[in-house]
């Protein structure tokens, strides 16, 4: 039973990071129909900023907040410079732009920060707690908590604020939203900013595990994408649940069934789920009425 809880807690910790990154993907997709393939690379870049700031100041809060401020600027600039000028382009073209951004951010990061891996400290470095025989890292609790808090704020904002209504309206129908006076361009900017910040937080929080490097987000980005697909790209709750499911399921299958075959088993099951429910666990089928 100790092993079960140990695996579940670790799964929730990594799953919450997949959820954060997945939420960023879905936010952009819902508002602009674009899947941002560069989300992982943008998060990596923000993590390098956090690492650099930490080296300069030795203050974790400064590094963390610095990465968030940078992500705000980065998200804004990417939308204004790369995405908005291509607003009339096809969706495929926009997605290819985000593929191009992968190369740009990876190349820039290599050129500016170098190609070495760097260790990065945890948010909380205090001693582990033991409940029964289960070892719990305060940092794991912090990661799960901060993820839940961020998601709660985001959900509240989307449901109850004017900006949230604007985001939902743009997500539902851009033209109607425009006609109703919704500042669609601002909604796009805001979505990119929020998504980039979510990615940056995921990057900074996963960095102590993966180390800071140009390849640090590869696995997280892939899993967040799968979390979004599993939960449903059409829902804001789905990717969060998808992230947690993948994190926990990965560990339980690895421990109780087969470590070597866990990836195959987990993703085969996910494919089966998607065959049964193609829009994801929380996705809805939108039928056009004639």
């Amino acid at each position, binding site marked *: 039973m100790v*092993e079960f809880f*140990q*695996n579940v807690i*670790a*799964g929730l*910790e*990594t799953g919450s990071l997949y959820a954060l990154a997945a939420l960023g993907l879905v936010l952009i997709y819902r508002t602009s129909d674009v899947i941002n393939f560069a989300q992982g690379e943008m998060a990596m870049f923000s993590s390098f900023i956090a690492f650099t700031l930490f080296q300069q100041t030795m203050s974790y809060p400064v590094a963390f907040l610095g990465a968030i401020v940078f992500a705000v600027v980065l998200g804004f600039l990417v939308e204004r410079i790369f995405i908005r000028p291509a607003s009339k382009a096809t969706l495929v073209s926009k997605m290819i732009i985000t593929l191009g951004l992968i190369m740009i951010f*990876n190349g820039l990061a*290599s050129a500016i920060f*170098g*190609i*070495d*891996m*760097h*260790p990065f*400290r945890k948010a909380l470095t205090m001693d*582990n707690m033991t409940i029964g025989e289960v*070892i719990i*890292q305060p940092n794991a609790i912090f990661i799960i908590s901060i993820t839940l808090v961020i998601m709660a704020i985001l959900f509240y904002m989307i449901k109850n604020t004017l900006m949230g209504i604007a985001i939902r309206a743009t997500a539902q129908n851009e033209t109607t939203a425009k006609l109703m006076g919704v500042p669609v361009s601002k909604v796009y900017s805001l979505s990119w900013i929020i998504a980039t910040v979510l990615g940056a937080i995921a990057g900074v929080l*996963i960095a*102590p*595990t*993966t*180390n800071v*490097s*140009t*390849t640090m987000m*590869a*696995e*997280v980005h892939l899993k967040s994408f799968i979390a979004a697909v599993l939960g449903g790209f059409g829902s804001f709750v789905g990717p969060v649940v998808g992230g947690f499911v993948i*994190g926990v399921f*990965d*560990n339980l299958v*690895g*421990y109780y069934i087969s*470590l*070597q075959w*866990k*990836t195959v088993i987990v993703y085969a099951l996910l494919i089966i789920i998607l065959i049964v429910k193609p829009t994801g666990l929380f996705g809805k089928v939108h039928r056009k009425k004639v």
Partner: protein
Amino acid sequence: MRNYSKKGLSLAFIFVLLFSMTACSGEKSTSGKAKEKEKVELAQGVTKDSVKIGTIGVQSGALAFIGTPYFEGMEAYLNKVNDDGGVNGRKIELVKKDDEFKPDKAVQAMESLVYDDKVFAVVGQLGTPGVMATESIVKDEGIPAVYFGSGAKQLTKSGENFFPVQPNYYYEGKLMAKYAVEEFKAKNVVVIYQNDDVGRDGVEGFAEGLKELGKSGLLKEEGKLAVGAADTDFTVPVQKAKSLNPDVVIVYSLAGATTGILKEFEKVNFNVPMITTYSNADASFLALAAPGAPNVIENLHVMGWVDAKPEKLKPLMDAMAKYFPNQKVINAYTMAGWVAAETFVAGLKEAGDNLSWEGYIKAMNGLTFTDGLAPEISYVKGKREGVTKMALSKVTKNDKGAFIFELKTDYTEFK
């Protein structure tokens, strides 16, 4: 009349064509003999005063941190040899090709080196994917290939013109088994391995080593735990390892995964002696892994095949200071590149002026090289295992509180 003239013209044309072909073949048969004679004496890439060699490896992208110091080490040695007058009056010219750690680019690079640049030998090709992808070209052409930045065991059987230096992971796994049994007196071993060619060769070698030592029972099937190189969560393998209560854990993975595994050991306070591959025997690995696992890292032992005593490293350090004065990173990759060049040059000296491919291969087949950074490299009697003598070092803290590797055993072979 017109037909006759056309026929005549055609016959004349065929005659001229046949004549010119005969003339050409005649020319080939007379001056060709001299050229053939020259070919026997000097292979492609060799002139009176130079030997052109080629190398392939990652020099850009995410893995350039491996290739950059590696090729600098190689160039530092070759520059030093050239500045000292070369080998038998010939300066060594190095042609470098970047494969970005991609097998398809490695194939293009190898074709370019062999057919366009016409190099005499391929020295120090770096990276298992590229080495494996180009193996057939090297085999078919018969060009001497010295040192592979790869631990693939297949290279030991690739052919007469292949001269591996770096120990292969299969052999290293066998030697790890010897250390687990003889040094640690292990009764129960768990292997956490990277689920790719590196880890699989290692775990196979370890199992074979135990078998040859008559200790197969030490490693049970459930004690073989696979991890992915890009995994971000190592809870499961470490929990499983802990539940099996081993007295030694073999960590057969490269720096990224090993760092994650050590952090998980630290998290659950799993204190047990560990042995890891020579690929992690570098200060850059300690700098990466130690902050996340400051306590359990002192349980870590690493295999090593390069004799990194200060007096042995002095020529390398001096050459690096001279030729790459701005380079602050001198690590295991630099040493590996140095050894690659050192081994090739040892063969070149042995071959003397007989610089045909056959001549070089013959010379290498008689080589037992003990003057370099590696303890011993021998290709006598068709041996192709590369370096077989390895030692075990333990991670420990020095007087200043920094983590270092401390040599614990002599350099030994698996026998």
